[in-house]
């Protein structure tokens, strides 16, 4: 077990699975609806290009083990992806049934069915390759590094993962909404992936602080940058330091890993209109806050968060204030935040003079993005950083010899499945590099 034990009473444990698990009958029926398309759009829409018709057919025939093998062969994080992928905008969104106005195949739920079985039965599919004597340093124990390390081990390269947090799994453990997946499941995945053996995980070590890149270069033959994104971006308005005002990602991490009490919180305001904001509003509702408002500077159509997520949030009773920004926070008698001063904007997002209002809030979550960590590597000669992102070619190679990158730190913040795809691709490039092919 690489993962640290989790508190069973942590706040996230009150959430139930949003998309339930299939029984065998349900899975077989749904699987048998799949048309077994040739060269289908669902596969193209999956960043890891899982052979979807093939894994689904194997469920239909009862070959669940073969189904899981097909999934994991393309995407070793298939278990978490099945739960956390926004399938409506990926594979399921492109299923040809949509064009027939027939409900599309529930690919994520079927993937969950097969991968959960694999975990439950402890099926193992992959072995480490013969030892090459080379080792690779991986920054961060998130999805990108895990996918990269697994692929490197299949090719026989040694791996050391440096993780600054005590917990492993990256945002899969500390960020994703608990109604999709809880931290214990993310921990299971880390154990499952690292079950291939030969991956050393060092937690509590921040590269750049406790260990330098020079030291990494001295110890290892290549470096994979998978450190994700940095802390929540701040609004920089008066009152932001009041107790009760949090960065959303920070707050979510606390909710996922620790006990927390929201007693006394009746009103919550989430600032932002992206997916983190959408998760945060639903999480606040799920934790028992009666009045939850999403405060977004644009209108509904301009929101960068997924519309299916917003629709679900609305069903759960969340309200929105469109075209308004927080310009300050008011303290209550107890010295904690009590309200959000809001300024209404016009269509060009310019303040409408005199149009201000106050929303009551004992909890404020600021979800306007995460900072980029490119600065960490900017000083390394050859590495290019663009708008905070580490620049890499399509295989993940950076401009510095022996340095590769994947996941949020490179793509600026996408999904777990993108991190999995990029981590795996980078491992292939690293392998080529280590064996003289790059």
């Amino acid at each position: 077990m690489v993962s640290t034990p989790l508190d069973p009473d942590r706040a996230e444990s009150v959430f139930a699975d949003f998309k339930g698990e299939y029984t065998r009958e349900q899975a077989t029926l749904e699987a048998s609806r799949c048309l077994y398309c040739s060269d289908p759009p669902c596969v193209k829409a999956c960043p890891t290009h899982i052979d979807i018709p093939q894994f689904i057919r194997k469920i239909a025939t009862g070959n669940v083990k073969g189904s899981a093998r097909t999934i994991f062969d393309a995407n070793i994080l298939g278990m978490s992806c099945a739960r956390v992928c926004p399938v409506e905008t990926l594979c399921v969104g492109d299923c040809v049934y949509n064009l027939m106005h027939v409900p599309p195949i529930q690919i994520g739920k079927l993937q969950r069915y097969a991968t959960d079985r694999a975990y439950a039965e402890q099926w193992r599919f992959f072995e480490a390759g013969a030892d090459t004597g080379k080792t690779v340093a991986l920054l961060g124990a998130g999805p990108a590094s895990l996918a990269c390390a697994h692929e490197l081990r299949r090719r026989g390269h040694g791996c050391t993962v440096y993780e600054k947090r005590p917990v492993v799994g990256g945002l899969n453990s500390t960020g994703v909404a608990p109604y999709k997946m809880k931290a214990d499941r993310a921990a299971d995945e880390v154990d499952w992936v690292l079950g291939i053996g030969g991956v050393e995980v060092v937690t509590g070590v921040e590269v750049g602080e406790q260990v330098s890149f020079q030291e990494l270069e001295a110890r290892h033959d290549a470096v994979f940058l998978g450190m994700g994104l940095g802390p929540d971006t701040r609004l920089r308005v008066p009152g932001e330091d009041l107790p009760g005002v949090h960065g959303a990602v920070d707050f979510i991490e606390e909710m996922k890993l620790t006990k927390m009490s929201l007693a006394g919180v009746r009103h919550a305001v989430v600032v932002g209109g992206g997916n983190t904001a959408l998760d945060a509003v639903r999480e606040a509702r799920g934790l028992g806050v009666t009045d939850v408002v999403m405060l977004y500077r644009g209108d509904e159509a301009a929101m960068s968060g997924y519309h299916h997520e917003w629709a679900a949030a609305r069903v759960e009773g969340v309200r929105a204030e469109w075209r308004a920004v927080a310009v300050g926070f008011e303290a209550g008698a107890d010295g904690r935040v009590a309200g959000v001063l809001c300024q209404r904007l016009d269509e060009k997002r310019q303040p409408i003079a005199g149009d201000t209002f106050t929303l009551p809030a004992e909890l404020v979550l600021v979800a306007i993005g995460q900072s980029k960590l490119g600065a960490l590597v900017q000083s390394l000669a050859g590495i290019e950083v663009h708008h905070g992102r580490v620049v890499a070619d399509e295989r993940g190679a950076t401009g510095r010899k022996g340095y590769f990158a994947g996941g949020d730190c490179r793509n600026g913040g996408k999904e777990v499945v993108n991190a999995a795809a990029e981590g795996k691709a980078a491992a292939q490039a690293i392998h080529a590099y280590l064996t003289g092919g790059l």
Partner: protein
Amino acid sequence: MPDLSSNTGGIRSPNPFWLASAPPANSGGQVQRAFDAGWGGAVWKTLGRPIQNVSSRFGAHSVAGARAIGFNNIELITDRSLEINFREIYDTKKKYPKHAVIVSLMVETRDEWRDIIKRSVDTGADGLELNFGCPHGMCERGMGSAVGQEPKVNQEITSWAVEYSSIPVLVKLTPNVSDIVPHGLAAKRGGAHGVSLINTIKSIISVDIDRFVPEPRVGGLSTNGGYCGQAVKPIAMHMLAALARDERFRLPISGIGGISNWRDAVEFILLGSSSVQVCTEVMLRGFRVVEDMIEGLEEYMRTHGFSTLESMVGRAVPSYSEWGNLDLNYETIAKIDPALCIGCNKCMIACEDGAHQCIHPNPTGARMPVVDESECVGCNLCQIVCPVEGCISMVGVDNGFAPSSWNQFVEESRVLRPKKGAH
């Protein structure tokens, strides 16, 4: 309002839907409930010398998403006493004078046949059905399909039955023969008023792959059973049509085998059935399936202008011909409707791997394959695999060649169009 009443060799019923001789027609209570639900007739579960059944006796062929598209059984004839059966037949007939009650029979010796026929006729039943079809158990004892497979024996027993019976006699034929026609003709020579077909097909339904025993498993052993249900319909219809179109036969036929809805019934009637019998569908879903069968048949008759069932019986028989008479110059090609195509590429892979390699990716890059009409042989495979109804049509083309069948080509030296897709 079309007239659904049916007449099969003198056996009349208010509609052509009969319960086949099988578990649904095992007792008076069942048959009477079936009549209340709308069934026009019932062939009682076969009577004979009392038997003892095995416990585990049914098996099913299920495919993902569809349970029991095929069904098999290893049960024998009735296991209830003759006295009880006859009393219930009598009661049923009394209560339902207009419905057809047919007694199915299977015994061995001439004396037994004389005795059981007399008792059957005394119940007031409308007809008899001689079970020459059961393919398991009874045939090992020289009855059932053992009779149906020997035209001489079939003819002889039929002639006894006709001699002893004052009511119409149908002979129920077994499909476990290479050609059904001689067996139908034997029944006719024996004096039968009609035939029923098919009984079940010899089968092993499945194997328990963990225990290494076929199913249905009776302890550590199993045996071959009789196959029926939706999956057998094409086999049943071929046998039906083979007899229906034979000039020498010309007897009424009660069609059986895989009928599960009004559409199946219509097909059987168009191929020459005067009545249709159903077993498996009722076993799986109960008597009330008949409501839709009646409504569907009525509506079909209305839309096609059939005022009586009689006028419909055998309507498709004349167009069932020999391969040698088919027009080799008749040509179709596949056309994809771009408005309906969902881009699943099923047609393309089917044609590529399983047919004539004439459906290709769209040269414009659009997600809709294109048919190379100069190569398409018109085989229908793509239309069969396409999930969108009406998306692929098989369209006739005028190739300028006068019709020519193989027979006409051989006998009259007619001209054949050049072959397609034979590269």
